[in-house]
């Protein structure tokens, strides 16, 4: 459970969410991405292929990350949302705010 960070061959920072993204760990994800931005990374992919559920605090953290990435002139992609997770983005209309790809591979090729 938690987050893992890597850098793909093309230089995209890939963060995988393993387990839940909820009120108890949202700050950890924000800190991780903000640190990457501070180090100069500008292309960020957050992958949810191994994610159980997200609550509204997790969605809020993603909105916060999206703002910071935008302000830094970077690009953010999300990937790997299953049908249930996707429904949360659709219900809250956040699917209109984020660039969402089916798979991490598709997301990486869209940068």
């Amino acid at each position: 459970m938690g987050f893992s960070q890597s850098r793909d061959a093309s230089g995209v920072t890939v963060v995988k969410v393993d387990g839940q993204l909820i009120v108890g760990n949202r700050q950890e994800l924000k800190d991780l991405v903000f640190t990457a931005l501070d180090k100069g990374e500008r292309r960020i992919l957050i992958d949810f292929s191994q994610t159980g559920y997200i609550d509204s605090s997790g969605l809020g953290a993603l909105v916060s990350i999206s703002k910071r990435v935008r302000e830094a002139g970077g690009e953010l992609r999300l990937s790997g949302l299953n049908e249930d997770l996707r429904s949360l983005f659709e219900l809250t209309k956040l699917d209109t705010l984020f660039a969402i790809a089916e798979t991490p591979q598709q997301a990486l090729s869209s940068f």
Partner: protein
Amino acid sequence: MTSPLRLCVRRSPAPDAEGAATLVTLRLPSDIACVEEAVELVVRHCLAGHETTRKTRFRLQVCLSEALSNAILRGNREEQDKWVDVRAELFTDVIRVYVTDEGTGFDPASVPEPIRPEQLDELGGRGLFLIRKLVDAVHFNSQGNSICMMLRRP
């Protein structure tokens, strides 16, 4: 390390919940670090012995997480001497979950829907909206410090 959660599971009959086959109660401190474990415990006991779809499990997980974080952050304001109580009444076709905090309560009718375009960039305000969308019925007590969420089993 001792878990701070106090879990009590009572199986049929549940004398103080007429008709409920199973009663699950849980008390947790006002600490957001406890939410994930509390959700896991309550969901596991709510769904034990029943064929459950992935969607039902997901809805229960998200709504419990929302209600608990609202109770801890907004209701009890993370005050360490205040507790959050979860009570799940399990029927054959329905799960009814109450989450109660020790705060002064709020008016749920005053919470706006967070999906207007100008609100999409807001960091918060989606919790109650998601609960209302994901469960089959939502009720509050008159004080506004206890939410009842009802899910029909498929």
